[in-house]
């Protein structure tokens, strides 16, 4: 057997799951899709004494839209369900574009959005996408709940603000304004591998076609997914023309602080940040006119 022994609980309700976690604390891990946790357990890098398996908890998955257009995705919603959802493709296309880069179909069958975000791998696609979209996360615990912005959720590699009795229960994504454009680009050595660097961008124009808002979020560019606010500030008020985009990309390149990896040193990652920011902004700018 690869993993170390553990006790397995598969509660049917959220209340039971949260009570187990509150009682056992860090000795227990929530098991969502298992596509990151189980590899770590197979290597025995992770040896939780208990797994609280969320796969039988009712009501933790699902895709819903509020009247104001906010998209709510239950934490246990599989990538496979999200990437096949026509309404998400139409109204939040950045999610779909980035999901195509997340591992392989076999992994997306089981992998969940909430599990991925709680895992907080800075090389992962969805955390950066959540920053770009300005998502908010609903955290639940047996003593109540709270909501945090995606930008405040990730604090270090594989580390979030989740307390030991808390679960990421729901992801809430505000609607894209009209005249918005989004794009996602990454460079990986092989299809489905972790990216050496990637970027998710959102631009919004005003009625006159000027950039009203821009957000660039990078993955594999530091200990957490990171926004590039100074690059975004350079774009505001511009026509999202070639020169403005090039200036913003140069700023983003200086703004990120990549740590390097086995496959790419920080200098190369910085180079990729500039190139991918420029390309992604150009694509998003064109899409915001469509």
């Amino acid at each position, binding site marked *: *057997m*690869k*993993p*170390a*022994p*553990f*006790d*397995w609980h*598969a509660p049917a309700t959220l209340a039971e799951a949260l009570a187990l976690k509150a009682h056992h604390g860090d000795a227990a891990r929530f098991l969502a899709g*298992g*596509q990151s946790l*189980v*590899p770590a*357990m*197979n*290597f025995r890098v992770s040896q939780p004494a208990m*797994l609280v*398996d969320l*796969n039988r908890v009712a009501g933790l998955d699902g895709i819903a839209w509020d009247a104001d257009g906010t998209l709510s995705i239950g934490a246990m919603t599989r990538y*496979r369900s999200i990437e096949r959802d026509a309404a998400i493709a139409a109204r939040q296309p950045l999610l779909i574009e980035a999901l195509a880069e997340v*591992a*392989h*179909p*076999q*992994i997306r*069958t*089981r992998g969940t959005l909430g599990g991925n975000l709680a895992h907080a791998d800075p090389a992962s696609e969805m955390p950066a996408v959540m920053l770009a979209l300005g998502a908010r996360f609903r955290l639940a615990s047996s003593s109540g709940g709270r909501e945090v912005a995606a930008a405040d959720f990730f604090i270090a590699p594989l580390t979030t603000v989740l307390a030991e009795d808390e679960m990421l229960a729901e992801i809430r994504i505000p609607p894209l304004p009209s005249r918005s454009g989004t794009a996602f680009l990454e460079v990986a050595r*092989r*299809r*489905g591998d972790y990216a050496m660097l990637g970027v998710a961008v959102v631009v919004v124009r005003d009625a006159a076609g000027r950039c009203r808002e821009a957000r660039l979020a990078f993955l594999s560019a530091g200990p957490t997914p990171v926004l590039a606010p100074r690059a975004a500030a350079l774009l505001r008020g511009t026509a999202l023309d070639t020169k403005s985009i090039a200036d913003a990309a140069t700023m983003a390149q200086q703004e990120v602080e990549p740590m390097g990896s086995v496959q790419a040193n920080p200098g190369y990652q910085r180079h990729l940040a500039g190139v991918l920011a420029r390309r992604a902004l150009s694509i998003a700018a064109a899409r915001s006119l469509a």
Partner: protein
Amino acid sequence: MSQRIAITLDVNGTAYRREVEPRLLLTDFLRHEIGLTGTHVGCEHGVCGACTILWDAAPARACLIFAVQAEGHAIHTVEGLAPAPGQLNPLQQAFQDTHALQCGYCTPGILMTMTAFLAENPAPTEHQVRDALSGNLCRCTGYQHIVDAVLLAAERAR
């Protein structure tokens, strides 16, 4: 720590009842508990694709699922593809006809990945086949003939 749980799993339409530790991976359940050794074990951390099975008709890594989690789900393995002993299904036949296997170790996983892929994409392009194949490693690196086999199976089904 030696919690044991009685489970009944539906594999290729047959119910198998066993008592297992929760840490038993689905791959090891298939191979060691019920003797279905067609599901291969390669990397055991979700990268190589050799253990790909169908989980409720969708491709999944059996090495990243605990057997106790599979109760209530329909599991299909490579043993379930052939219509009868000594026969091949159309996808397997296409693999034979185009010499799409060398050592054969990766083949069961690829057959299961492509079974699910062709069910959703009956008329794929070569690019789509290559993309779908990206989650299965072949260390003989005979990918070209595998692509040919999938395209041939799709063409014959039309």
